[in-house]
């Protein structure tokens, strides 16, 4: 169950305590996140909403080990990541985090297959094993027939599916999705959300998603609002039968 009061139990997959992030800009201290607590359990789908500049992406970056907090700590699957060195954090990301970006961020000179294979090149898997994993991931997102297509030969929705395949190919502990539908039309956005929901429901993936779109957010188990650097309890979204914020 998602909690923001700092009283989550040992069952929490992701645990943030007293999380703060402060930027210095022109001598002025900007407190983007302040004493934020969060507990997310395995298999939960959490959406973060909030106005621009509220710190949604910053929170995602901190949870994904792309940035380090100014205060507090983060524990994921028992690993306290806050004080890891840069290189350790990189290795940790490779094992535990799958990233889905708004702008897809695929490498244009690589095919869908090669893009999805990228995280696996860091493993000790053989070429044959890598191929099996990549084909399975692309099959899971419904792109088995686009394996050898380059990003420019794919639609926006298909590109985002390749990004999702790249995020799940190494079977990470959780997925971080930063506005995954922000650059898509409604139909493509629905398809992507269906895909993410499938990953949560069928494959028990834990997904943390930032979005501006309330319709998209409604598909999550729970929506949390970030306002002035603090996670604010939100009403339980309609249609979500269980879970919620306490």
């Amino acid at each position: 169950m998602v909690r923001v009061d700092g009283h989550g139990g040992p069952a929490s997959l992701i645990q943030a305590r007293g999380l703060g992030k402060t930027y210095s800009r022109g001598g002025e201290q900007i407190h983007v996140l302040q004493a934020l607590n969060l507990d997310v359990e395995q298999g939960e789908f959490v959406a973060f909403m909030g106005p621009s500049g509220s710190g949604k992406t910053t929170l995602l970056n901190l949870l994904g080990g792309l940035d380090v907090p100014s205060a507090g700590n983060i524990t994921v699957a028992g690993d306290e990541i806050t004080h890891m060195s840069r290189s350790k954090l990189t290795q940790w990301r490779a094992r535990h985090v799958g990233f889905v970006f708004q702008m897809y961020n695929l490498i244009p000179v690589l095919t869908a297959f090669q893009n999805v294979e990228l995280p696996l090149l860091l493993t000790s898997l053989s070429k044959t094993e890598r191929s099996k994993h990549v084909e399975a991931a692309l099959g899971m997102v419904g792109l088995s027939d686009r394996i050898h297509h380059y990003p420019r030969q794919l639609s926006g929705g298909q590109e985002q599916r390749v990004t999702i395949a790249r995020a799940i190919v190494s079977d990470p502990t959780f997925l971080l999705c930063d506005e995954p539908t922000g650059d898509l039309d409604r139909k493509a956005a629905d398809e992507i959300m269906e895909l993410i929901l499938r990953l949560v429901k069928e494959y028990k993936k834990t997904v943390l998603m930032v979005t501006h779109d309330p319709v998209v957010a409604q598909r999550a188990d729970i929506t949390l609002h970030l306002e002035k650097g603090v996670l604010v309890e939100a009403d339980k979204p309609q249609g979500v039968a269980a879970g919620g914020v306490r």
Partner: protein
Amino acid sequence: MKFSGLILANLFRKKIRFLLTIGSFAVALFLFGVLAVVKVAFSQGIDVAGADRLVVINRVSIIQPLPLAYRDRILRIPGVQGITFDNWFGGVYQDERNFFPQFAIDVENQRKIFPEMELPDDQWQTFLKDRQGAIVGASTAERFHWKVGDRIPIRGTFIPGTWEFNLDGIYHGKRRGDDETQFWFQWNYLEERKPDRLKGQVGWYTVKLDSPDNSLRVSKAIDAEFSNSPYETHTDTEKAFAAGWVKQFGNIQFLIMSIGGVVFFTLLLVTGNTMAIAVRERTTELAVLKAVGYSDRFVLLFVLAESLVIAVIGGGLGLGLAKLFTLGGDPTRGLLPFFYLPGQAVIVGFFLTLAIGAASGLLPAIGAMRMRVVDALRRV
């Protein structure tokens, strides 16, 4: 190896830029190769000059003669093992552009003093019996398609008239750098047709020492022997003589180093700029690589590898073209008898290529290594 596809895919991202950058390396290394060839052409004589041989010329200038009578006096100096003499002929074969060095030689001692110039004994014996006989180096024979038995007419310059020679033999140098362009004929044949005022004179002596250690002492002794005479001498080691000859063309080494330095510095700026742009364009992609688990060190090596691959392809192409250029032989038709790309220059060129490749990729690579993922993604 599993990352090679990633490196190659990135190289071909901007094909024209890739080809132009490779072209920059190729042109620079081709020029380096040609400069190395020119350097060898001018310095090879110095490199292969005998350490145990001295050259004795007229103190005024090499074009001033020395008396033949000096031969026996030089031979008596302790440390002198043998001696031979030559005259420059300077004739023209068919056309003045067909330059090759022609020497009237002392047939009795030539092979003793220059054992590195080899030819079959039967050819040499034929030459000794033939007053109009001639021996030519393999390179010149090949150049004019001469073969043993050919009749070769040469127009005299300082001794006018047409000189007919029978080609009795073709010599080869033992070492790669030995001069195979010379044309030898009997000194007596020249002596017969010289005007009286020039008779009994030789162009220079080559002295063989019993030990290279004696070169300084014997040089001084020879010059002392003829000091205050109408024909004072200047004696030097064959190496110093060859070096002095090259110096007449200017400081070739300095010229080559200067041109090479400017070319490589320009190449460094051009490729450094290209790599910087290439990395800048891919900031987001490199950030994504880091996000999915690629280390800072990997990104550094990844960018460096791209730079090195470009350098190796371009450099290899340039050195290959330089090699092809030398296969056609001396383009000056005889002025540069040693015209080849030495293996040492290829090795130096290869390492220079790697150094420039690494240096041009280093700053962008360090920038990519230090780049923070969140900052890079925020730039989009």
